[in-house]
């Protein structure tokens, strides 16, 4: 009489209940829903931010880019521009929003240039708090900034005063990942020196950058697909990531790769010996979940409790 309703794919060893299948159930629902992620990029004009974003996600987010001249820049204040791209890979859908901040650091007097950025981040928190406190919570959209790439110029001797001020103002509101831009202007030795300098200054000023959760050493994942074998536990040792981006494809040994062609050679974006691009991308992609969690559990909750204390009885 019995028509089997379920394909009996579950092992029925004695004592097996089957709730170990829960992660698969959660997975199935998440894949159906898709994911949302918001990444902010901050840094002076001309540090290669847009190029890097295009390289990271293999897309052209800025097709008709207009680059203003210096005279125009004098008038400009910091803008906030958000672009959304939908990426699907192996059945997983990601709705990625990149928030750009053109004008940052351009003005002669950059005193207030991060006020707009802070307001934007707070605005997203405010909106989420409002939605979360509302009656209908079925379709809350999470536009909170989950991660901020902060671009450090390779031309200086470390952090600039503006860099320090920005990071101090924002480290309690967003996960900051410092990135050394245009790394092809530095030799490997110069890079190491700069990285060390930057890290010293970060610690000197009590700046809290995003901490990667410890990879349990016995479950140390190896990321083979994207890079030569890279251990999860080693990724933190490369921060700040020294990166290069490129929108151009160059032919090297019969293959077309993203790179920059110089008279003295070709810099390959996705070559781990040339720069940390792949490590940055691996880190971002494998920590999306954690970045969202820290945003929710730390930055948002701080905002929320401050906000509620202010409006309370």
């Amino acid at each position, binding site marked *: 009489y*019995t028509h*089997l*309703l*379920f394909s009996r794919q*579950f092992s029925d060893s004695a004592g*097996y*209940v*089957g*709730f*170990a*299948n*829960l*992660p698969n*159930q*959660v*997975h199935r*629902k*998440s894949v*159906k829903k898709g*994911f949302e992620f918001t990444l902010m990029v901050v840094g002076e004009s001309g540090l290669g931010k847009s190029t890097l974003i295009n390289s990271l*996600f*293999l897309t*052209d987010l800025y*097709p008709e880019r207009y680059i203003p001249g210096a005279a125009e820049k004098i008038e400009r204040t910091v803008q*906030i*521009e*958000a*672009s*959304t*791209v*939908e*990426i*699907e*890979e192996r059945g997983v859908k*990601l709705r990625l929003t990149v*928030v750009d901040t053109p004008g940052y650091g351009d003005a002669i007097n950059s005193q207030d240039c991060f006020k707009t950025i802070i*307001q934007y981040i707070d*605005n997203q928190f*405010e*909106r989420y*708090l*409002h939605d979360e*406190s*509302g009656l*209908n919570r*079925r379709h809350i959209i999470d536009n909170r900034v989950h991660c901020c790439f902060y671009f450090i110029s390779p031309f200086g001797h470390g952090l600039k005063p503006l860099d320090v001020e920005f990071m101090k103002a924002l480290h309690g509101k967003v996960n900051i990942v410092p990135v050394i831009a245009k790394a092809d202007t530095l030799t490997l030795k110069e890079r190491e020196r700069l990285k060390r300098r930057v890290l010293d200054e970060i610690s000197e000023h009590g700046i809290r950058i995003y901490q990667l959760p410890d990879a349990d050493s016995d479950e140390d994942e190896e*990321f083979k*697909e*994207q890079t030569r074998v890279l251990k999860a536990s080693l990724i933190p040792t490369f921060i700040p990531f020294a990166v290069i981006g490129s929108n151009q494809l160059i032919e090297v040994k019969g*293959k*077309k790769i993203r790179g920059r062609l110089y008279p003295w050679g070709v810099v390959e974006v*996705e070559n781990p010996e040339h720069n940390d691009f792949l490590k940055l991308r691996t880190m971002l*992609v*494998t920590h999306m979940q954690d970045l969202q969690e820290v945003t929710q559990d730390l930055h948002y*909750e701080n905002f929320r*409790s401050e906000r*509620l204390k202010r*409006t*309370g*009885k």
Partner: protein
Amino acid sequence: AGPVESKNEAAMSELVPEPRQKPVVPMKPMGINANLLGYIGIDTIIEQMRKKTMKTGFDFNIMVVGQSGLGKSTLVNTLFKSQVSRKSSGWNREEKIPKTVEIKAIGHVIEEGGVKMKLTVIDTPGFGDQINNENCWEPIEKYINEQYEKFLKEEVNIARKKRIPDTRVHCCLYFISPTGHSLRPLDLEFMKHLSKVVNIIPVIAKADTMTLEEKTEFKQRVRKELEVNGIEFYPQKEFDEDLEDKTENDKIRESMPFAVVGSDKEYQVNGKRVLGRKTPWGIIEVENLTHCEFALLRDFVIRTHLQDLKEVTHNIHYETYRAKRLNDNGGLPPMTVETEENHESNL
């Protein structure tokens, strides 16, 4: 303090104008020259979520309701292949039936395949056992709402916990007596009231007292009665998310209520150890689909719909409760900084 909504509205108009939103850009298709490095790795987020689920473990709260002696405790033990019910917590079978409905929650942590589950079994001794059973579902409804209230209080707290402890009832197994005739008035009343606040899964208890034909007829009759009385049991039609869900759930709904048999005793059958009941005329194997539908119930509740039971509880039943509370109070409970002492009195 007035309702939070209006304050937020005012604040938002002072904020920066909407950022310039560009139209959504679909990802450019990969060129013919794209090599392996054209892979970004977005799908690893699934692995991250899986790791997180395994690390944090999860709560699951299951309530059993039905008259004494219908095998509730035994069935729960069978479901989780562990001694997790009242039966195994020093409860004496000879104990007198309580005069009112009692709510007894027993918690256990069980682990399987690296996944930790904090299972709470909520038993309701005394339900339906009195001479006058009027309103005997009230203590149960009260308990369920109390758990929603507890969760809500924590959620609106200023300094709230990262993971709010979840004591809400995710699933209520309602045991129908295998009379072979129809549902009893008490069954209808209970399910009418409670199907609006909790996921109810009706089961036909002690199904080994019916033959195959009796079983089929009884199930059909019960299903008809539930339909006629507008009782939506889990999985509710209105919450099917898409066609895939609807197809899968339609099949399940058509075979419910499952006719089950429970046992925590093992016997040897054809060289295997099986859970069963030994009678002079044969051994009833609990996990044998030709004997009863226990395995279907187990697969349904635990192996395929466990997460969904929690989600429907959180996204639908809890939200309904919350919305009612918001409307009743004219706003959320005041969100002052709550000390341990005044926590209770604020509501």
